[in-house]
């Protein structure tokens, strides 16, 4: 990897320190906030395939939480 070769003295690149850091914490906080802000989604419209907003919003955040976990994973494991 390029980064490693630029920092031969440290042995491993500065990014591979397995730290979440502020960006990592923000990635993790986003899905949490999305489901905690109940007043925003406790309603019927807009509907999707006949499913009220309350239901599809919360179900939607399940795969989206996976995406944000992936961003946090990339941050921790690869330092990006």
């Amino acid at each position: 990897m390029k980064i490693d070769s630029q920092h031969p003295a440290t042995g491993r690149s500065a990014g591979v320190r397995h730290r979440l850091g502020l960006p990592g914490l923000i990635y993790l906080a986003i899905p949490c906030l999305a489901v905690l802000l109940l007043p925003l989604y406790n309603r019927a419209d807009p509907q999707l395939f006949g499913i009220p907003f309350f239901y599809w919003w919360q179900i939607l955040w399940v795969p989206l939480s996976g995406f944000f976990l992936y961003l946090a994973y990339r941050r921790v494991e690869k330092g990006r």
Partner: protein
Amino acid sequence: MHLSAIVVFIGLFFLIAFLGFLSARWQRGDLGHLHEWGLGGRRFGAWITWFLIGGDLYTAYTFVAVPALVFGAGALGFFALPYTVLVYPLVFAILPRLWSIAKHHNFITAADFVAARYGSPALALAIALTGIVATMPYIALQLVGVEVVIAGLGFPTHGIIGELPLIVAFVVLAAFTYTSGLRAPAAIAIVKDVLVYITVLALVIVVPLQLGGFAKIFAAIPKHLLYLPPVHGNDLGLQSFYITLALGSAMALMLYPHATTAVLSASGPKTLRRNWIFLPAYSFVLGLIALLGYMAYAAKLPSNPSLAPYFHAYGPQFAMPGLLLQYFPGYFVGIGFAAVAIGALVPAAIMSIAAANLFTRSIYRAYWRPNCSAGQETQVAKLVSLVVKFGALLFILLLPTQFAIQLQLLGGILILQTLPAIVSGIYTRWFDPRALLLAWALALAWAIWAASLTSFQKSSYALHLAGWTIPGYIGLYALLLNVLLALAGTLLLRSLRWHSTVDHTDAAAYEELRQDA
């Protein structure tokens, strides 16, 4: 009796029993060591960990209870969804450090960690006892799921003939857990998940087609059940309860001994992080399962004469089994019911192993036989796992089901009170163990009192603050009290210079070692 369903059900059950015994040979290790029997040698890779944690957290009781809650209580029952969205970011941030330190010192449980971190066997005992007490009714509840599907197969709901299948299932479970340890539920979890995914996909495709689409299903639900009631004056009502319940339950899940067991059995922090990205796939299925409650409502299942006796006996808990019986041929009912029953055995096995690990390390070895050999230690854990399971079986056979449900509700509240000692310890040694112990005891006392206000029927407490009424999850309120007391107690002890500084853990071992990719 539904003959084809029974044949498929029994066939699948034999298959997983066979797998359970065979798994002792899988990734072979010396099963005379507790980390081999009780943690599968900490060698499970990303895939197996995914199945194991999934099988552990999304239990048979979930399949039965979540549709039942939505069927009976509407939108409030949907709290299971935000709860599972919240849990993975939480564990992602916190638990990899626990894995690293546990691997370094060969800790098997969170109580092990607390004992070493604070040099306090008393605090560890408190954590272990809370874990055991919270886990027992949880195991018992798994049996409720099995009971419901066995009745659905056409067995009588009462008497020895009705209870015999349950007893047989549990003896088989106890036997393969005893011989194979954590490897057994890990192997079975794969079969269980395949069955669950097939069943749920079939249900969410077939039933809405039969009922004329989702729009028609939702139109059949009364408006007051479909959403949480609006804030009324100064009373936040169910809205604050919904959020605090979701958040508190997510934090409690992270602390349950069976969750710790599954997490510590992974091969490393990277394995854990990678599979947490994919664990929401289960939550997605859970969301679909929750909607089954509305489908059962829209289908007016309880008014079907052939299903009415079951709804009479089991109430809303028959919503999911009822849908299967109503819309599917016998052999498929067998598959679905087997998914629920096997879905009970996986977590029940992990929970009994977790409780056994806690007893062995924090009670037996700490207070009884400090110098026991690894072999003796493992033997005790194996025996305790049997005792725990038969205790749960007697619980279900002898006491009303409602009792187990209430105790499980209380268990979640109690386990949440172990958070300050465990989670703060993962980051800092600032807190004093005596302050943590006292805060734990007072928070437990308050929580039990608050739950007793509703005769242990509900987990909600109405907090009155600055002119507002904020009903919330008792567990979360007790946790706030717990943290405040631990802070105040530690500050007091520190200001008097009476605080303890004992720490048997290696400060450098919290940062994980670099793993092979």
